[in-house]
């Protein structure tokens, strides 16, 4: 009898746990807003839990909460390079209670590659809470010192130079294609599925150059295993101040920063957008876990873009990347 009781208690506990799971992931429908926000805000995160973009988004949300007076609830909707989360938020009620945190490629690159239900114009950009400048690296004992050296080698011995990049349509992929296109040389751009596999392939000598994220590259550079060849952002990267950009090395069109941003659906009232931006900016400036972590992972923007400036930046990136993607026949 006692055993039976215990079994039922176990079932009860598991049911209870299940309920907690459901309540934890769901959202509660709220009442009308007098002064925004009157209830918790859902922040849809397009990246997997634990990704750099996810950690950054969760921390900036925590940092901004005190200035909003209400909780920001992170909800991960992973997949399709952020397309699932973006598609969802584009269709959400524009009342400021559903906001999207994603990497800029979701809005500037993915719509050019896949047939989607949303475009860049469906969103109002609010705030940049992180930035990432990918970097091209070579093995420490490699003969190449600049990107031009690599190009020369490819010209002399066609079919020998390979670039490892994280994936099709990522900024290192686009940068590599732009270089090959501008120089008219044979360089194979090989998508290897992430920064970690790209570094492994580089160290093993399977590719000559790897384009990876800065936080992944810096420890390897400090240990003397690899050397930075060029960063691919508009300005030199945080933590890699000695590495010239591709712009400096004779490729003025290649300015491919990736930003982590927060956007809201088109049609959200101006006052709400301003209030959000204000709170996020105060959260960005505050001393705390967000600032500490973002600095430690080289993602902290010293002068974050927001509002109209961010919108302008996104438009420009979308135009450049759209052309490249079309030319390279990526996607669609």
């Amino acid at each position, binding site marked *: 009898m006692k055993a039976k009781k215990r079994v039922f208690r176990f*079932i009860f506990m598991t049911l209870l746990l*299940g309920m907690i799971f459901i309540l934890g992931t769901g959202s509660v429908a709220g009442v009308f807003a007098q002064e925004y926000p009157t209830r918790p805000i859902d922040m849809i995160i397009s990246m997997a839990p634990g990704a750099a973009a996810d950690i950054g988004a969760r921390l900036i949300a*925590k940092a901004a909460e005190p200035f909003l007076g209400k909780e920001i609830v992170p909800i*991960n*909707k992973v997949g*399709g390079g952020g397309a699932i989360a973006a598609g969802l938020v584009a269709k959400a009620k524009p009342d400021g209670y559903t906001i999207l945190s994603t990497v800029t490629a979701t809005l500037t690159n993915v719509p050019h590659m896949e047939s989607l239900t949303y475009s860049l114009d469906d969103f109002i950009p609010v705030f940049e809470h992180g930035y990432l400048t990918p970097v091209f690296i070579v093995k420490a004992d490699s003969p190449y010192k600049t990107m031009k050296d690599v190009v020369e080698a490819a010209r002399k011995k066609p079919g020998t130079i390979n670039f490892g990049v994280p994936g099709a349509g990522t900024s290192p992929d686009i940068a590599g294609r732009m270089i090959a296109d501008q120089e008219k040389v044979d360089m194979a751009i090989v998508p290897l599925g992430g920064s970690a596999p790209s570094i492994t*392939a580089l160290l093993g000598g399977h590719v000559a150059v790897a384009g990876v994220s800065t936080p992944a590259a810096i420890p390897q550079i400090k240990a003397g295993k690899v050397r930075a060849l060029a960063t691919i952002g508009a300005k030199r990267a945080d933590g890699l101040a000695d590495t010239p950009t591709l712009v400096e090395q004779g490729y003025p069109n290649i300015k491919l920063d990736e930003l982590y941003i927060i956007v809201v659906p088109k049609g959200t009232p101006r006052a709400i957008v301003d209030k959000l931006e204000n709170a996020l900016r105060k959260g960005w400036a505050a001393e705390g*876990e967000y600032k500490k972590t973002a600095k430690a992972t080289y993602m902290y923007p010293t002068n974050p873009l927001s509002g109209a400036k961010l919108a302008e930046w996104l438009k420009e990136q979308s135009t450049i990347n759209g052309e490249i993607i079309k030319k390279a026949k990526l996607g669609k």
Partner: protein
Amino acid sequence: MEVLSHVMNGFAASLEPVNLLYCFIGVLLGTLVGVLPGIGPSGTISILLPLTFGISPVTSIIFLAGIYYGAMYGGSTTSILVNIPGEAASVVTCLDGYRMAKQGRAGPALGISAFGSFIAGTISIVFLMFLSYPLATFALSFGPPEYCSLIILGITFITYLAQKSMIKALIAAGFGFLLSFVGMDGMTGRARFTLGIPDLLDGVGILPLVMGLFGVGEVFKNLASLQGVSVLKTKIKNLLPTKQDWKDSSKPIARGSLIGFIIGIIPGGSAPLASFASYALEKRFSKHPEKFGHGAIEGVAGPESANNSAFTGGLVTLFSLGIPPTVVSALLFAALMIHGIQPGPLLIPEHPDIFWGLVASMYIGNIMLLFINIPLIGLWVRMLKVPARVMLPLILMFCIIGTYSVRNSLVDVSLMMFFGVVGYLMEKFEYEPAPLVLAFVLGPLLENSLKQSLKISRGDFSIFFARPLSITLLAIAAFLILSQLIFSKKKNKIRLEKE
């Protein structure tokens, strides 16, 4: 001798009360998320990451790693009890573990998987301590062509998973490959077979597939043949493995630990391959391969050990090269970065306390896990006595919550129900789901590594034969197929003569 003093320091650090406490909480939490299908260790770790801001770096990494290897122990529980694999690696455990449970031997199955995990965990930590550096160099020799050949070798294991008809197994595998093509093409980003559903851009999820085919399929099957009140139709025999069980399992555990560790070192998401490889190996060397799939304890002991030591193998590249090969290891690195410690190739020389503290805590954590899991067996086994009218809806509920919790997608839940029907029909017409799952897991790996290799060689196939490691792997694959062909011909001949 230097290693020994490091080990002593590591133990001193991990035996501090606060570290012991966090290690215990970590492995306990890990066991829990391992048992509950769905949200896995990586989800749990990322949610708990902010909790580690206030504690020291050593303590936080001991805590977070504990969650991960703790989940490895718990993962087999639902596979054995109710045929729900919580991840791709546990699919193999379903094959014989669930049969054992049906024969009233859930206790020994759970016991041997806990002991096997413990032994494999301990052996592989020794490998990690003493062989890290040379093994890391071995890992680097795997480029896309070598990886492609390894996957081709892995595909030959499909033939070992076939229990009834080889042709039907191959048809199931073909279906698995087809399913794996859904989603964005890894080389061009072009969407394939997505039916315009954005949720399918990343392909069919592994959890909706395995939980549908196994867990939900089993529920449907039970509904169709519901006679008694209990899912379990026989009496429960002993709770712990018998002497004979130990005799049967000792070699599979040893082999599983070794092969799991080797496959674990190779970068690139090969963890499920470790358990499949161990299963194939045991069936190949078994004196009674016909028992596999009908409750052979070797089929549980080997893969469960391989599973665990593959995790430790993954730490080799993490610590000696400073490259995180999996999501979970990337999270461990993130935890260190938040504390201002630069993880990378210099981590061990600059912060020996962290590495050795973690290694020592893994010994202690494994012992804790053994003591947590062995008493739980009694409780789990008693769960089998729950009447079917309560049990089946519960299983269904857990499958739905588990699938939904991974990425909050209702499309995934619908997919799982669809695969539940597929699983039921496959069972009805005697198609086996295991070859399907193996093909599904290996499909994208094969496709991507093949295309990467050909891109590097500018379309020249000789890249696979010009490199020694690659050609060796291909030769083993060819040998396995040929030996099977000859073997099965002989068997057919004997069968014909008998008739």
